[in-house]
């Protein structure tokens, strides 16, 4: 799957050619699939008891593939968990087994405009918690009334994975979650989850989140955040940093503009400061006829040298904690990217049907936010929709029956 846009083939091909030098007897055929088609193609291959020997898996896929018996357990391979960042290694385990090895990780962070914050007399303390941020947004809006044409928060409400990844920060920070009772029941209607959702909805109601950005896709919103003076805050992965704030990038916005942007951890709440941490892991197909060779490649890709090279090329945090790559020339930003995974990273519940549940949450929230805006921010209607999302998840869990 692509990890660095269209350059990913070149990067992984480079790793494979390194591997071939030390393992000339093992042939490696590479197939790169778009993320949008990868799941379907992979599951079709599993249905036919077929597929690749070694698979790059999104961290939210592991529970499904493990449940289906599509990937091999790795606990008998004498793997040292201490070599990997705990958050990433945890994501590779479920149902009491180790199903994959972490490859690289990526967290969500908050991008902000230093100049806007300064003009509104806000400090970084204002963006440490959602409660303080509310106040900061209000100050920014007052600033808008007398000067620049800005809305505090840019947030895309298109049906993309980023929507739920970002929303989860509000929910987790209040102690809420998506599922509970050992993942057997939906948890969107719990007081804590509703509190998190409510504090997000308040930002829309007070126009602290830009209505225009809600209607645009994430790409357009990100482009506007960095290219125009439209917004003060944006939640995203490390990708925009490498595209817009990196002098080596074709789309670098220039040193003068770049210094206006700051990057920090996503704000927290009473239950803590959390952000979604994803990434990719490597697993061996249970239908592989070359499991030994596949494991050799897996070992190679997770060894120190390969991790150093590969993660530097794709600008992602290596899964190994004894490998360090420069994600940013600024030590502060480097620390934010690392902490967003190591100390504040959290993942979605490990449920075999998480993909379907996630689809309902993404689709349901996108619709609920849309209806909320159209209804002049009717919170009762908003939570009625949340109750329906909760019911649909409950249907899935009931039909699953395990």
């Amino acid at each position, binding site marked *: *799957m*692509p990890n660095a*846009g*269209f350059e*990913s*083939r070149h990067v992984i091909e480079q790793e494979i050619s390194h591997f071939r030098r030390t393992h000339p007897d093992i042939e490696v055929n590479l197939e*790169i*699939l*778009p*993320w*949008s088609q990868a*799941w*379907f193609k992979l*599951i*079709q291959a*599993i*249905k036919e008891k077929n597929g690749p020997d070694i698979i790059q898996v999104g961290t939210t896929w592991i529970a*499904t593939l493990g449940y*289906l*018996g599509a990937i091999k357990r790795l606990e008998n391979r004498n793997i040292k968990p201490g070599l990997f960042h705990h958050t990433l290694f945890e994501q590779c385990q479920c149902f009491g087994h180790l199903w994959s090895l972490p490859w690289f990780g990526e967290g969500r962070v908050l991008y902000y405009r230093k100049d806007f914050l300064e003009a509104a007399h806000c400090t970084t303390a204002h963006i440490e918690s959602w409660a303080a941020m509310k106040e900061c947004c209000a100050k920014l809006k007052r600033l808008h009334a007398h000067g620049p044409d800005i809305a505090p928060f840019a947030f895309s*409400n*298109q*049906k*993309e*994975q980023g929507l739920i990844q970002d929303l989860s920060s509000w929910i987790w920070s209040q102690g809420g979650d998506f599922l509970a009772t050992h993942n057997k029941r939906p948890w969107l209607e719990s007081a804590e989850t509703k509190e998190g959702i409510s504090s997000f909805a308040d930002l829309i109601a007070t126009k602290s989140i830009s209505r*225009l950005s*809600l*209607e*645009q*896709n994430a*790409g*357009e919103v990100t*482009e*506007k955040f960095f*290219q125009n003076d439209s917004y003060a805050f944006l939640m995203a992965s490390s*990708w925009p940093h490498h595209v817009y704030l990196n002098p080596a990038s*074709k789309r670098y916005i220039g040193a003068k503009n770049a210094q206006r942007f700051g990057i920090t951890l996503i704000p927290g709440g009473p239950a803590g400061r959390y952000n979604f941490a994803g990434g990719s892991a490597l697993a061996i197909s249970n239908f592989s006829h070359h499991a030994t060779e596949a494991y050799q490649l897996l070992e190679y890709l997770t060894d120190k040298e390969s991790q150093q090279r590969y993660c530097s090329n794709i600008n992602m945090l290596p899964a190994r904690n004894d490998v360090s790559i420069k994600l940013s020339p600024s030590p502060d930003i480097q620390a934010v990217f690392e902490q967003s995974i190591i100390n504040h990273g959290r993942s979605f519940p490990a449920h*075999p*049907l998480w*993909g*379907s549940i996630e*689809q*309902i949450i*993404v*689709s*349901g929230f*996108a*619709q609920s936010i*849309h209806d909320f805006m159209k209804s002049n921010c009717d919170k009762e209607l908003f939570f009625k929709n949340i109750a*329906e*999302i909760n019911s*649909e998840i*409950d*249907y*899935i869990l*009931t*039909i*699953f*029956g395990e």
Partner: protein
Amino acid sequence: MKDLLHSISGNFLYSNGDIDKVLSVNLSLLIQHFKFDRAAVFLLDDKQINLTPQKIVTVYGEMEGEGENLFHVSRGSTFSVALNQGKPVICAGKPEYSICLPMTANKTKIGILRLDNIFSQRRIKSSDTKDLIAVAELFGFGINGIQTHQHLHHQVTKLTTLSHIGQAFASTLKLSEILESAIGSLVKDLGYDRAQLFLLDETTKVVSENISIDFRGTFRTVDMTGGVSPLIESLMYETKPSFLTRKFSTNLIGYVPIKYKSKRTGLLIVDNLFTRQPMTDYDLAFISILSDQLATVIENARLFERVEKLSITDSLTGLFNHQYFYERLDEEITRANRFTNPLSLIMLDIDLFKNFNDTFGHQSGDIVLTTVSKIIQKNIRSIDIAARYGGEEIVIILPETDLNGALRIAERILYNITTQEFKMTNDQLAHITVSMGVVSYPHDAIEKSDLVHKADVALYWVKHHGRNAAKAFRECKEL
């Protein structure tokens, strides 16, 4: 331009249904002809709500993804505007280096053709717009043709499979085989992720069983007599097939209540919760056809089971009949031999039954026989076989049971019968006793007839030694 249009339409015409390949070729042609950096096709789903990137080609070659997933068309994004207004939109930042063109066919929205100069950041030439509209129209018709072809091919395959499944139903009358064959076909032949069937008990009208299978291929049967979720209970009484999660998910779970004439038989649920491939109304129609067939074969199989049961059952006592006893004794002896398991036999006779009949009448005698049979059935396991051997004689086969185990069962039966009060037709209360002979295979006999004979001998030994007791053959040697 004429040559370009000719090539594009030719490629669609001879694509042989391979949408991936033809889009790759045709998008590359656009890049070459118009000197774009990138060309992409985004297709609308069946509900005309979501746009998914289908193929992205760049000047450097095929692009293997760009982190974009789904786009909702009802909101104000560039794609939505282009689709909903039906005209090209030049867009995205400054300079305007990208154009989105709606693709339609016969007034049906197909998707978006997006062309851009994202890498070189060159403006889109407005002079190209007219030609690009023609190209997008051609793409719309071409893609629509392939989609229609694929859809028809899919339906024909499913109809053929349905016909084969119908034929398979006719090959057996055994209910469990029919149920497994039906839900197995939904997964193995029709390609759904999972199928499950909830079956209503004919007498109690509550869900008694759940049989399910997913694409890993293992059947799972769960006894549901402990209760079923309110959701399943409510779906059972729905009047027509439908999708379960309709508002926010894309038809991943379909259900069909199974009815024979107006009688509810069960509920069939099919889902694509792993592949996340939405089901269509056609899928629901196929599942409904299958469930109609299934309702009929379930009814036939149950009828057959009833007839079969009648032919092996004694009508008065509900125990098995004499013929069935000998058939099962053969089978159980063979099984005991194969696994070197013990096997025991109890021969039971109601003491002084003739006198009882003479005193209280034959109807009261029938009450005694029926009650004794019920007591026996309550005190044996489901794998044991109790049969009416003749008159007031009852025989019990106890597989995997040695002599001591059989004697314990016999004593338990004896106790429960002798402590039972029998209410006669004249409301008078009476007590009865029984005598039992117990034998064990292979210790007491190897031959079937010899085993029965020795149980009978032990029974008559008890009769001659005071009745109201159970005795092992090997303890009656003086006879």
